[in-house]
């Protein structure tokens, strides 16, 4: 059947009329990203669907809960249009991809709240939150960009802004965003926001300092001696949150050090790696990479400023993992084949696409093992290209992460072969191709087969604390037991870092 023969039907998408050919997937119209590539795995395209569509598939039965199926929720990537129909999204996240899902929580229930509670992760770039009912079910989730970004993309520039007199506006910005998130969560669940009586707010140390308007000066220079490491309960009104009752509680989990925060503690809690007795590495790769090693019951953590290359910043055609971003690249018959989020025309490249691209260009020998490109630029998928300077930026970023992991191992006297698992937390880690990450030296190649992805583990950990009164004490123990490895000015790290910039086989 040629395109002209295809019968068009009318789809109402969140109130807007759109045309679609019969037999097409509804995801062709959707504005949500499909991290799984439209394979019915990630659940990102969940929406309520009414009207003439294909019957529910086995894949959807697996991915959706009974109550969701009863409510008419479908996966748009598995639902085909058969006639006029309507799609209503559960929530919208401004077209930006904020990682919500983590592993399913299977845990004791003794919540910090009586009616509703919210777990919230303040990332430097994105904020993500989940609303829970007292029986432990997730009622809604929502994410948005951290509005503090206008004061600078990275932690240090925000600290500088706060020291330069913008501490109060920075606090107001993030508090306003929390109020907005709480309001949206309550709306999507159909409950009054003022019935949310407890919040667990995690984030890196700087984010919690900025939220509480604590003096950030100690975070601005070595020796980074911080007095306040949280593990505290505050009142909502003391934080100036207006969406809640004034006496609602806000728990801020314990941080480890100036640059290893409560988010890492929460990720460690959720990952459970401190309890297993195994030798396990954890990496949360973002603008700041936080890494942890558990070996013989000892926890060592470090952080390294990888830079924002994997968030698409500082790369000539880089972008965040949103619609139009190239997120997957492979080599076919000597040429690069790119996948674009949203299946439309490419407009840029995000972190996972960047890792794939470098691995592919090494395979096609467009880049040599030193990172040198014979041509000025390499085309990924018109008009998106990768320049020599982009390759250099990736070399810096990937080597910082890998060197951090290697330094943790070397300092603990652990050989990489002894590592049983490398746990990848956070958004970028979830979309990363582990084999390509090993190929380009973002992670030690030996560990590529041993990676486990745990999604937004910081948010999971915050949820665990919210749902189980005993979990905050466990998080606190993790934070207090951690040894911090300082990487800057460490000669072992320097050596790994500089030599790790190569792409050796």
């Amino acid at each position: 059947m040629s395109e002209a023969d295809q019968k068009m039907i009318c789809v109402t998408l969140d109130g807007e009329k759109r045309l679609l050919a019969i037999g097409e997937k509804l995801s062709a119209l959707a504005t949500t990203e499909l991290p799984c590539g439209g394979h019915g795995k990630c659940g990102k395209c969940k929406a309520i669907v009414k009207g003439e569509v294909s019957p529910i598939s086995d894949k959807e039965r697996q991915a959706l809960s009974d109550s969701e199926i009863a409510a008419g929720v479908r996966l748009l990537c598995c639902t085909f249009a058969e006639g006029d129909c309507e799609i209503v999204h559960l929530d919208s996240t401004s077209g930006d991809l904020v990682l919500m899902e983590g592993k399913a929580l299977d845990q004791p229930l003794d919540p910090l709240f009586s009616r509703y509670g919210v777990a919230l992760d303040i990332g430097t770039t994105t904020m993500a939150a989940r609303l829970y009912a007292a029986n432990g079910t997730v009622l809604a989730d929502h994410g948005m960009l951290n509005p503090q970004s206008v004061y600078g993309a990275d932690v240090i520039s925000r600290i500088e802004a706060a020291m330069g007199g913008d501490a109060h506006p920075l606090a107001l910005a993030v508090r306003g965003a929390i109020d907005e998130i709480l309001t949206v969560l309550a709306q999507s669940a159909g409950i009054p926001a003022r019935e949310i009586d407890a919040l667990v707010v995690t984030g890196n140390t700087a984010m919690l300092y900025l939220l509480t308007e604590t003096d950030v000066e100690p975070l601005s220079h070595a020796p980074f001696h911080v007095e306040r490491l949280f593990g505290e309960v505050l009142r909502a009104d003391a934080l100036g949150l207006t969406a809640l009752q004034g006496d609602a509680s806000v728990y801020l989990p314990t941080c480890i050090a100036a640059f290893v925060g409560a988010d890492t503690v929460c990720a460690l809690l959720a990952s459970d790696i401190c309890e297993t007795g195994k030798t396990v590495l954890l990496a949360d790769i973002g603008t700041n990479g936080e890494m942890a090693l558990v070996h013989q019951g000892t926890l060592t953590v470090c952080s390294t400023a990888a830079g924002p290359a994997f968030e698409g910043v500082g790369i000539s055609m880089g972008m965040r993992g949103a619609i139009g971003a190239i997120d997957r690249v492979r080599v076919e018959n000597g040429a690069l084949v790119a996948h674009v989020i949203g299946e439309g025309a490419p407009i840029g490249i995000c972190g996972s696409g960047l890792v794939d691209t470098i691995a592919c260009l090494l395979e096609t020998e467009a880049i040599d093992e030193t990172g040198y490109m014979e041509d000025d630029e390499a085309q990924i998928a018109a008009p998106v290209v990768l320049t020599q300077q982009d390759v250099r930026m990736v070399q810096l970023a990937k080597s910082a992460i890998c060197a951090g992991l290697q330094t943790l191992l070397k300092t603990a006297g652990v050989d990489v072969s002894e590592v049983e698992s490398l746990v990848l937390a956070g958004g970028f880690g979830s979309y990363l191709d582990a084999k390509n990450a090993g190929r380009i030296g973002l992670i030690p190649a030996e560990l590529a087969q041993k990676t486990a992805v745990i999604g937004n583990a910081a948010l999971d950990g915050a949820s665990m604390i919210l749902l189980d009164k005993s979990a905050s004490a466990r998080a606190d123990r993790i934070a207090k037991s951690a040894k911090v490895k300082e990487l800057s000015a460490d000669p072992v790290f320097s050596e790994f870092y500089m030599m790790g910039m190569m792409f050796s086989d």
Partner: protein
Amino acid sequence: MINLSEISENLQRGKTKVVKELVQQAIDEGCKPEDILEQGLLHGMGIIGEKFKNNEVYVPEVLVAARAMNAGAQLLKPLLAASGVAATGKVCIGTVQGDLHDIGKNLVKMMMEGKGLEVVDLGTDVSADTFVQAAIEQNCQVICCSALLTTTMNVMGDVVKAAEAAGVRDKVKIMVGGAPVNEDFCKSIGADCYTTDAASAADAAVALCKA
């Protein structure tokens, strides 16, 4: 007779062991130490520096080349001292107080050594007074300050002030560098020179020492 360009070529490829052997061979054959240094080691490092500026080679190649150069230079040092050959100049370098990030600083140091400069490495977290005292005591013509953080780069202004307070501002040049630093910042604190990369910094330091 050994061809000194062979030393240069092996240095560019980071062949420390070969460079060492060739330098020793050249010495044994009676080559002038200055020639071995100029036409062998510094020549090779100069090419690496140019390629680095043009983005053709990157940090690891500079590092291995610099290591090869240092290995060769160690053999030449006593001979050069004996024959009264002076370095092109003397500088001190360090990361400013509160900043521990020394990778960029180390790269600049290697490039400067590759230009034949004598470099006093003050390490990390160096106070303004330490910079100035080192420059006075060790007779350095240039102070080089590095900072990676926007929150620590302002300490560079203190170094300029400390040099003024010590009454040596007219005798010593102050160079600044690091990711957040730029030309405007350099001017605003009254420093003498900023460059965008390590290789240019080495060239600039040589020029300042000659001036």
